[in-house]
């Protein structure tokens, strides 16, 4: 993976890239730079505007409470009233700070993107048809609209998103992807999409614009990372409902407490009542909720994935079925020779030698792998073409379906598809044995590709030597990865164009749950629909135009950035690295987002227990001294107890901002294991931590005159 220019402004080190099956991995995020807090302060203060605060009911209640205590502190000044007032305001500011910091990181990224979106001058073609360029005029890039044609030449910036309709060029897309190596973009096929703001390095292309002004890919990216039109996701909404209702319950509990207390002769001051309320309502999660959401999107961006909506990120956490393309995701891109199988009577080394000879000029990855195998497994030194003076290399053609070499001494070697080579043997007077056929079948049956090797010595009939076993190499560690996914309850389906036999063998080796062989786009679509019919959520990756319908149908469709603009339009995420394995990470990020919310909610509610033990005896042990027993923390005085609870309540927000931004630790495991672990840490921890925290704060606060 490349360094990421997108995150330059946020000095957040990238989390180590996950390696399949490597060390215990987890989804990580950027760490919090204390400087960010300071830089975000102005934004945090701006958010104190009640119209903005209204969107967050929990913190709005705190703000109203702060305003009330301020009034109280001004009209009836006391050290206690002022200390509480200051800390209540700090609570609100801290909450805003959390959001501002999360947004700040996005803003920094947006700024970088905006640089790429410099005003470009577009060379618009009045009319274009194949072979006819029409008249050219210069317009501002922002004025381009759907269906315009522009011409871009080496050194120029592509003025808008579109498809190449003429020519081929190398393009520098680092502004978007952070990848410095240029990529090839050409008309037709699946690599025709170009993105506005990227730069043509060589050649000349004509681009048909496919986006409206202001809706280009870069525009959307900027919007996304800035969170400008961030909409609350379903889960976030549901959680908000829960938090709001808890806030109302506690509001009622506090408001109705006053007449009860008054009757008992223990009427409380407004400052104390507001303190009790603020301590009880779930301020911790209320303060961090939106930061968690923004940071979740941010974590995706850091992994070079653009989610078109927060909804898609959440859906990723719910995925039941992953459709994975075989090539590149499950297997390395190419087949490799794994074994030489000689026929009876042929020495293994002789076969290896012949195989190597025939592959010397074969520059395909398969050919190279044969040479490598011969060297590593049979110790055959690699011979250079130059060593074989007078040798004539026979290249592979679609007609002959074999390649080989004719040496100067008349020795001929061929390798290729079974039927083609055997025909060659027969044509040259040989009699291929039955055995070859069964070897070929065995290798095919195991999912491999058999290449038959034959030779013909001068003056003798040709004979088969044996078979090279070419096989798909399953990525190291991918099996463990799928086992983890299975533990998470996710079914993996391998999509491949191979025949069912081959597909089955690879599927077994890789440990996927199911496979779709000889898959056509229609098959993919049918599979997705079938899964969804049963209520499952499906994720897939795709790049080609013919993937677009399936990408649109899937609940999470990740389009490769190298793909066509149709594919990118259809999916709800774009992977700028075009790495199909990323889907697994996306799922983990989605889950982590929800887990962070759930865990902090639990933590926030569990905190209340300790706060009660601090505040209730402080309020009522004057009239009912027996309640002093509840002061199990042994807090110094009523005022110091309430102050300590409020200070703890505010500080815990600051303390948890890094966690909110980073997300809680997530290790793929079963639901029960996850629940048990998070309950222990955030439930039990949330119960115990404030007892310690409030006591510690009280040890300091008790020395403040006026709070004794």
């Amino acid at each position, binding site marked *: 993976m490349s360094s990421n220019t997108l995150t330059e402004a946020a000095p957040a080190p990238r989390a180590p890239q996950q390696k399949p099956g490597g060390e215990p991995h987890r989804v990580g995020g950027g760490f919090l730079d204390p400087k960010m807090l300071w830089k975000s302060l102005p934004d945090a203060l701006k958010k104190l505007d009640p119209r903005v605060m209204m969107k967050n009911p929990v913190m709005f209640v705190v703000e109203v409470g702060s305003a009330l205590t301020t009034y109280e502190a001004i009209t009836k000044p006391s050290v206690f009233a002022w200390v509480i007032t200051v800390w209540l305001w700090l609570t609100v500011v801290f909450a805003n700070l959390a959001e501002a910091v999360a947004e700040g990181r996005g803003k920094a990224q947006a700024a970088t993107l905006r640089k790429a979106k410099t005003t470009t001058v577009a060379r618009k073609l009045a009319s274009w048809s194949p072979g006819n360029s029409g008249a050219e005029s210069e317009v501002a890039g922002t004025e381009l609209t759907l269906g315009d044609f522009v011409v871009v030449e080496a050194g120029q910036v592509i003025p808008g998103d579109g498809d190449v309709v003429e020519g081929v060029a190398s393009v520098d897309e680092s502004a978007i992807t952070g990848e410095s190596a240029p990529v090839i973009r050409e008309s037709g096929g699946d690599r025709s999409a170009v993105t506005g703001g990227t730069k043509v390095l060589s050649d000349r292309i004509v681009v048909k614009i496919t986006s409206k002004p202001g809706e280009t890919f870069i525009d959307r990216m900027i919007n996304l990372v800035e969170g400008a039109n961030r909409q609350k996701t*379903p889960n976030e*909404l*549901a*959680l908000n*409902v*829960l938090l*709001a209702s808890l806030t*109302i*319950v*506690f509001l*009622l*509990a*506090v*408001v*109705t*407490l*006053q*007449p*009860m207390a*008054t*009757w*008992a002769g*223990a009427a409380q001051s407004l400052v104390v009542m507001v303190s*009790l309320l603020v301590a*009880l309502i779930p301020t911790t999660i209320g303060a961090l909720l939106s930061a968690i959401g923004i940071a979740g999107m941010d974590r995706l961006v850091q992994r070079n994935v653009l989610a078109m909506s927060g909804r898609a990120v959440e859906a990723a*956490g*719910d995925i*039941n079925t992953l459709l994975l393309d075989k090539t590149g995701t499950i297997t390395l891109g190419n087949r490799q020779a794994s074994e030489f199988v000689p026929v009876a009577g042929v020495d293994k080394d002789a076969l290896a030698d012949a195989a190597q000879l025939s592959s010397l000029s074969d520059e395909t990855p398969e050919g190279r792998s044969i040479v490598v195998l011969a060297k590593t497994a049979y110790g055959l030194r690699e011979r250079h073409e130059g060593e074989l003076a007078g040798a004539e290399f026979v290249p592979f053609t679609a007609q002959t379906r074999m390649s080989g070499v004719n040496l100067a001494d008349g020795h001929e070697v061929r390798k290729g598809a079974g039927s083609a080579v055997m025909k060659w043997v027969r044509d040259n007077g040989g009699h291929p044995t039955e055995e070859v056929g069964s070897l070929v079948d065995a290798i095919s049956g195991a999912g491999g590709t058999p290449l038959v090797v034959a030779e013909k010595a001068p003056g003798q009939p040709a004979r088969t030597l044996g078979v090279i076993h070419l096989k798909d190499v399953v990525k190291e560690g991918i099996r463990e990865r799928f086992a983890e996914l*299975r*533990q998470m*309850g*996710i079914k993996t389906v391998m999509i491949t164009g191979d025949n069912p036999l081959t597909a089955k063998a690879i599927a077994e080796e890789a440990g996927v749950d199911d496979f779709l062989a000889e898959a056509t786009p229609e098959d993919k679509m049918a599979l997705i629909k079938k899964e969804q019919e049963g*209520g*499952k959520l499906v994720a897939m990756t795709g790049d080609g135009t013919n993937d677009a319908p399936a990408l649109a149908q899937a609940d999470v469709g990740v389009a490769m950035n190298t793909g066509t603009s149709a594919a990118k339009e259809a999916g709800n995420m774009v992977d700028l690295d075009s790495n199909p394995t990323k889907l697994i990470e996306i799922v983990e990020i*989605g*889950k982590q*987002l*929800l*887990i962070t*919310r*759930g*865990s902090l909610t*639990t933590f926030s*509610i*569990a905190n*209340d*227990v300790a706060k*009660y033990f601090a505040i*209730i005896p402080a309020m*009522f042990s004057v009239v*009912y001294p*027996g*309640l002093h027993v*509840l002061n199990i923390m042994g807090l110094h005085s009523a005022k110091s107890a309430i102050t300590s609870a409020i200070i703890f309540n505010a500080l815990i927000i600051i303390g948890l901002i890094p966690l909110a931004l980073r997300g809680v630790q997530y290790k793929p495991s*079963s*639901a*029960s294991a*996850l*629940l048990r672990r*998070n309950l222990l840490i955030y439930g039990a921890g949330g119960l115990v931590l404030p007892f310690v925290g409030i006591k510690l704060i009280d040890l300091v606060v008790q020395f403040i005159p006026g709070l004794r």
Partner: protein
Amino acid sequence: MSDTWAGLLQVAALVLLLAVSYRPLGDYMAHILTTKKHSRVEKVLYKTMGVDPEADQTWGTYLRSVFAISAVGVLLLYTLLRVQHHLMMALGMPKVNADLAYNTAASFVTNTNWQNYSGENTLGYVAQATGLAVQNFVSASVGIAVVATLIRGFTRNRTDRLGNFWVDLTRVLIRLMLPFSIVFAVILVACGSVQSLGDHMTVVHTINGDQSLYTGGTASQEVIKLLGTNGGGIFNANSAHPFENPTAFTNLIEIYLLLVIGFSLPRTFGKMVGSHKQGYTLVSVMAIIWVGSLIFSTFFETHHHGINLADGHAALEGKESRFGIPASTLFMTSTTLTSTGAVNSWHDSYSPFGGGAAMFNMMLGEIAPGGTGSGLYGILILAIVTVFIAGLMVGRTPEYLGKKIRPTEMKYAALYILTTPAVVLIFTGLAMALKGETASISSGNLGPNGSPSPHGFSEVLYAFTSMGNNNGSAFGGLSGNTHWWNTAGALAMMFGRFLPMIWVLALAGSLAKQKPVPETEGTLKTASPLFAGMLLGTILLVVGLTYFPALSLGPLAEGLH
């Protein structure tokens, strides 16, 4: 036999009875609520009522039907109470005054059975049997009908049809409540409970003068009062009265009756959703709360730190000698954890923590096992809230029984858990703020010279906790028969009953519309000890946090010296 062993065996016998009933009764109720066949009697009834038993209702129609029968119930009962002096067998009782009649009508239709009157000198036969007892039957059955609908919300997919209220109601009445009541009424009579149509008799007592005595149709009403978790007694002393509850054996039967439907409904639920384990999970949470609460109150009653006697005991104040402490706390725990509210001992005279436990039991929302139907839907709502938080913690959109908990579902669940505390706290706060209304607190329970006391406050808190949760038991020292208390109480009971029903039925409607989500390894297992533990924790934490401040001014202040 030692007292301890006897007490334990008593609990064991009850648990055994309930355990034996769990499967057959649960399965039977599931059958009643799902079978397509109508009996001949029912067909006649449907015709008489003018309803189409095959019509499948939306949640809105179902709710409106619930409201219709409840409104008719309130009006009918109110009318009966207002004209009872014109009815036959009125025992010479005058008409009930308007606000008490309103309060009583609301009370019995909402399955609360809060009584601001004393039965033996307020009501005649007709008002009791054809008025109150009928509402006892109907309100209990309405609860079961509503929970059946919620369960259908889980079992049905992609539909807005949730069943037929009239069919559910009729079947529960005719096939469950009525036969059960007949059998157990006869058993109660056989054990000494009274059942006659006679007028007052004169009992000649040479020493302290003759007395007038009447028996009433007690056993028949006693059974449904318990079976339907209603709680309104024929006599003022309720199930402490020897005519209602003559022996420790009938006491056991009565506790069994008030628990049995509540504890068996999880089986019905498990059967209907196709996983008995789900039922076991819920029933185990109910049982743990019940046992825990029982141990807690029994401990504090037997280790009374009472101030009254030199040897430290006043625990028998307000308890009957034939029951003693264990059988009283067993009844108290059961009646406050269901929405019954019948009493065999006066909760007002319990130790501070014992009485506090009674209050806390009700504050839990009547879910362990709760009222008929209402207990199960109460705990299902809490399960949904738990699933939501737990679901987030495992990184998936929370789902329960294959249905997603989305903002809509969460909205109704949140409204549900918000409603009862709001009713309880607002009315309690209001009563405490009103000088004239705190006068209803019993003067004997106030401090020196009528000064405020924690126990005095407890009477008010208990009253609205009881009414808001449709329990009906009381800290009986409070004089509730005033205009304000009758009116406020009626409102509290209606809000506490019908608002939650709206949320439950709306939730059912929203769940039924969903398509099911398949269960996978990543799905949170809701039939597991871990989930049961978390559900228990959520219940205790949410309730504890909501009521802790109020409780600290009542039982806690009283109990902590």
